[in-house]
């Protein structure tokens, strides 16, 4: 199954998001939601849990949440705050013990491994700790390690393209080992319809993620989803108009 995701960048508080973007226009247009805490420095875990709960109360799709997860408890709190999966990045190399505890308690499908990649001297390199620490292993070796660990999904993000709207870094996919069988979500750079459409056509990708804010203005995302469906992309199907009618009859009757 192919799916599309939305990743929230913290450019404003939650209230800002709900005020400036009709969240239900977004939440009913995606297959899954990814919420990442990208705060530099010390993160306020409790506040993040509340944000996740708040978004989860209005989003009836699978939710992955993460950013700075270092303990089993933090993962657990997120999974009880409405998240179905946790996203881990630095934890993968920092503590395989805790990774295994999370997998053991919640199952492999509850863990999404996130990998940030940047091009340095014409080579793709892996960065952790919010993009501040360069790792020695190649992207391919890094992904091989992740395959051995056994996670549910891979979230592969291009730091270079992130937020540019210039299109995905498709060449990144060449670094994926041949035997890699974990579903891949590609992220970083989607700015318009064609990016999503072409991304979904590439058989090495199982899902495309977008965090580009212009995609969410008005009913932009809804229109993009409808177009993808019309053009034959295999996205899950539901009728977006019914809920509006339903909501009205439920709250007046």
């Amino acid at each position: 199954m192919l799916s599309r995701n939305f990743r929230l960048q913290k450019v404003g508080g939650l209230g800002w998001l709900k005020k400036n973007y009709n969240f239900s226009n977004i939440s009913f247009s995606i297959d899954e939601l990814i919420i990442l805490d990208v705060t530099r420095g010390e993160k306020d875990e409790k506040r993040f849990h509340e944000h996740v709960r708040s978004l989860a109360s209005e989003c009836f799709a699978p939710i992955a949440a993460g950013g700075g997860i270092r303990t089993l408890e933090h993962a657990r709190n997120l999974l009880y705050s409405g998240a179905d999966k946790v996203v881990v990045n630095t934890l993968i190399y920092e503590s395989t013990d805790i990774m295994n505890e999370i997998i053991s308690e919640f199952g492999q499908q509850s863990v999404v491994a996130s990998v940030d990649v940047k091009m340095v001297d014409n080579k793709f390199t892996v960065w952790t700790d919010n993009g501040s620490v360069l790792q020695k292993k190649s992207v391919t070796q890094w992904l091989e390690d992740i395959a051995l660990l056994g996670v549910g999904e891979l979230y592969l993000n291009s730091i270079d393209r992130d937020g540019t709207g210039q299109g995905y870094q498709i060449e990144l996919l060449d670094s994926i080992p041949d035997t890699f069988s974990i579903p891949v979500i590609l992220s970083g750079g989607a700015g318009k319809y064609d990016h999503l459409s072409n991304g979904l056509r590439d058989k090495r990708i199982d899902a495309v993620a977008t965090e580009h804010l212009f995609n969410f203005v008005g009913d932009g995302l809804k229109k993009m989803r409808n177009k993808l469906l019309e053009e034959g992309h295999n996205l899950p199907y539901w009728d977006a108009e019914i809920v509006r009618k339903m909501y009205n009859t439920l709250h007046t009757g």
Partner: protein
Amino acid sequence: MSIQKVTVIDYGVGNIWSVMSALKYLGADTELTSEPEKISKASILVLPGVGSFKRGMEALKGRGIDESIIDAVTSKEAKILGICLGMQLMMAYSTEDGGAKGLGLLPNKIERFSIKNLNEKKIPHVGFNSIYVNEKEGLFKDLPDFADFYFTHSYRTLVDGMQGRYATCKYGDEFLAAYEIGNIYGTQFHPEKSQINGLIMLRNFMKAE
């Protein structure tokens, strides 16, 4: 539609927040409880759950909730919706973790997806998948054709000898995706994670007589 009181059963298993949020979104007056007396008295029950069948049954029995559910559903005609593990627990038996008995409200047996039918597909079955409904009434009213729902499970039950209104899904095997038999309803998928189709189904459950 007048405001319905929905009692969601808390037995320490799984993410209840999303189920509660979806019910509230649909206008229900929700109550989350693990108290047997409250469960016995409820007229609308929801049994959510993810994870191990054995642990789920132990959690229900440990709190004395198993008997309250059976009492509410069989003597008091309460309607109940089991979601994912919740749906499985209402059945007779599961082979997971060496085997365990369920609440027995339905005779079905829960078993792991059979590898030989899967053709390289992976277990667990995770993601959106389409369901095929035998009658688009009751629980399945107003669903579009080829409605997709979100699944995440390794165990399932087959549909041989199934009565009543039900829906199937194909993942290697053709298995039971959802059903409505008298006052007992169940979904293998997560309606609270299935966008609009899921909300439609929850609304149908709440409205059902």
